[in-house]
């Protein structure tokens, strides 16, 4: 069959465009940060899509969820399936859109939101935006999240084509960028970022006096939206303030959140006030002097919170379900392996040497 010259030209152009797009995609893949070491938080949003089973409980929020709760403990002790869709300095609108994104894939029974980000009413930093948003799958939800989060210099286009943002990384490519070109490794355990080392609380920075303790209105707007979204999907929303002592959570803020919760009949647990009941000891249960919990603290908190969930909500114990049991057996093995690996580093070097090396120390 003889192909006409015009058709040949168009085929040539089409082939050229396909190859060019493939090369651009490859360049983008290579240049985008992999977050495999140093700052693994950036890998959290995308890791969710690896899940093969659904979850009864979804956590959204900042580091006070992904460092303070252990879904593996909830599983082992109560048979609760849970996932933490947290991100570094995840702003409330990012929590809302992350939840919306989650509901595209599953409908949990309970959603837990950590309220610390209620104190932030404006986009904060491009780096944190990137870590919270780049990993989300492309959808109208992601675009809404980007629009709500962008700082002054950011563009929507650069979230659609991250090559436009990360092109300059060509001069700082590391072996990780090539090693994880095709596939990254999991960094968390159902969204939980584990640290087993201990750094007792000594002295926290002095608590600043604020000019105005009114929480930004936008936080309540998104809280309303989150509540409506949960209601529409038959989900129980629970507000928590994780027991991390720093950054400070002011009583005035607490009162405003409590008032909203009461008005909307949403449970609100300020775990800072429940630390003794939970059994948190900031001499043994934190790895950074009181800001985040370590594994010991996260497991204690999860044990307590699992009991609360079981008592108050009819959450099914999935431990006898073979589908979940198989999946969680593998997860448990990975969990234990990381504990063992971190313990080995501490035994050998007195510290988590991999993290130090990744951070260039």
């Amino acid at each position, binding site marked *: 069959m003889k192909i006409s010259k015009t058709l040949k*030209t168009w085929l*040539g152009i089409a082939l*050229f465009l396909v*190859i*060019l797009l493939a*090369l*651009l995609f490859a*360049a983008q893949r290579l*240049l985008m940060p992999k977050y495999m070491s140093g700052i693994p938080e950036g890998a959290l949003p995308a890791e969710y899509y690896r899940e093969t089973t659904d979850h009864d409980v979804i956590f959204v929020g900042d580091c006070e969820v992904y460092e303070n709760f252990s879904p593996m403990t909830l599983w082992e002790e109560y048979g609760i399936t849970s996932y933490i869709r947290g991100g570094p300095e995840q702003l409330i609108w990012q929590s809302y859109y992350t939840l919306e994104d989650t509901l595209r894939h599953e409908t949990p029974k309970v959603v837990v939101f950590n309220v610390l980000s209620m104190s932030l009413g404006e986009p904060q930093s*491009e780096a944190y935006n990137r870590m919270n948003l780049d990993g989300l799958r492309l959808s109208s939800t992601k675009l809404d999240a980007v629009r709500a989060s962008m700082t002054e*210099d*950011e*563009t929507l*286009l*650069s979230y659609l084509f991250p*090559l*436009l*943002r990360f*092109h*300059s990384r*060509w*001069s700082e490519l590391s072996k990780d960028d090539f090693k994880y070109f095709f596939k990254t490794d999991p960094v968390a355990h159902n969204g939980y970022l584990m640290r087993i080392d201990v750094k007792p609380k000594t002295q926290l920075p002095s608590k600043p006096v604020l000019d105005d303790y009114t929480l930004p209105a936008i936080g309540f707007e998104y809280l309303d939206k989150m509540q409506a979204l949960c209601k529409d999907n038959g989900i129980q929303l629970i507000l928590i303030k994780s027991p991390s002592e720093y950054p400070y959570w002011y009583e005035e803020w607490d009162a405003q959140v409590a008032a909203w919760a009461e008005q909307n009949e949403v449970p609100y647990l300020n775990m800072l006030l429940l630390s003794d009941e939970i059994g948190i000891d900031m001499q043994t249960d934190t790895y950074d002097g009181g800001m985040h919990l370590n594994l010991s603290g996260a497991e204690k908190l999860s044990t307590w919170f699992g009991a609360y969930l079981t008592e108050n909500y009819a959450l099914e114990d999935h431990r006898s379900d073979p589908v979940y049991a198989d999946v969680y057996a593998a997860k448990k093995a990975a969990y234990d392996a990381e504990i063992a690996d971190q313990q080995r580093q501490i035994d050998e070097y007195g510290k988590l040497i991999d993290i130090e090396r990744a951070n260039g120390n």
Partner: protein
Amino acid sequence: MSFTSPIFLVFVAVLVLLRYLLPKRFAWILILIANLIFYAFAGWYGLIFITFTTLSAWVLSRAMDRNLSTQNQYLADHKKEMPREERKAYKESMKKKRRLMLTLGLVLNFGILFALKYLNFLTANLNLFLPETAKIGAMSLWLPMGISFYTFQTMGYMIDVYRGKYPAEKNFFKLATFTSFFPLLVQGPITRFDDLSKTLYSPEDFSRKRFSFGLQRILWGYFKKMVIADRIFPAVAALTASPDVYNGSFVFFAILFYAIQLYADFSGGIDITIGIAQLLGITVKENFNRPFFSKNTAEYWRRWHITLGEWFKDYLFYPISVSSGMLKLSRTIRQKTGDRFGKKLPVYVASFVIWLVTGLWHGAGWNFIVWGLLNAIVIIGSEELAPLYAKFHARFPKLKPTTPYKIFEMLRTSFLMCSFHILDCYKSVPAYFKAWFSMFTVPNLSKAFGAGGGLMHLGLTLADYAVVLLGVLTMLLVSLKQRSGSVREAIWQKNSALLRYAIIGAMVLVILIFGAYGIGYDSAQFIYNQF
């Protein structure tokens, strides 16, 4: 809508698509609409000014045209009965009217340009001589985009009509398409009506070759602008912001880096302009001809910003040098001092005037005035020293044709011209001269390459310098290849679509990856956009 913004690329892509989908006779209307959209993006306010300029040029040119037709008709009708003297007087009176119309147009439009661009500079300098109570406050004046470019282009058109070079354009909207042709608004080239109108009103049909050339030209422009100019920009800014710190050898690097930035930025922008026009089927005049290969200053200015130089030559230099006043002065001088100086006087005076105006055209500042005058001094100085050069070369006849000597001439000319270009960057003229002379008095080359405060502390990493170096080498290679003809033509002659696609694809990748844009880069607008 910056040339480097994604929205601009979409704008051009849609325009090009529509250009070939619509019948050719509507092309100029489409382009006029595109011009308006492009201009409106810079602020609706600017449309008032460009419309006024176009309208005044249209009305007055048409009036001049009618005046000339009336004159010719009258003379034809009264050919027999009118004595020669009467005919001459009639022609003179009609010409006077046309001159009045032209003057009105020039005064109005250059007046606007002067008021918006130079008034604050003038009052600031006047204030130096006024008592505190009489000082004039600075005005908040907004400069419409491309005002220097479209004013010069449109006034060139009016002068040509006055001179009878071509008839005035009857259709106002067609004239507006010419005065506001959007690719030229950012930084020229300053085109002539008779050059541009041929293809502006009746663009070329689609051809694969033209399209491919246009695309390659655009990409080449973006490569120069985004990969080279914008990457070296932070170093230039840092070096010239603190002349007391960055003196001595650093000034040499400032001159070198700014030469790279300015050439890559300006010629890159022109490449994009010409490439876009090519995609639309329109031919735009070249503005550069490998200027750094020039062997003397006069040649350099025939190869750098060609269209501005030609504009000044045609509309300012010749009128001044052959004006009756100048010729009278020349005669008087010749009678008193002899032929040599008397003959040259009109040329020298005209040179001084055009370089002063060229300096001012670039901006309202003493830096630009001094820049213009330095150029005039060098050009006139070269002219005066020409006999000495001739004697030297007569004594060493074998030297001039040698390659090392040619290279020496090119380097000498480039260094001199780039030494003047850097005046754009320093805050004041004294700071510039102090910095420039420090090259010969402050020996600190080791500091430039040293660990503390050297070239590695100017906002560029070693990798950045490597990219700039490779970019400059690529420009050099292309320039060397251009000596034997068009590079794109050579590629086309290979008759390989694969090669062309590979080149285009590689350029896209290189620009996207190695371009200095986005967060983390203080990407500059086109330098000539400010002028």
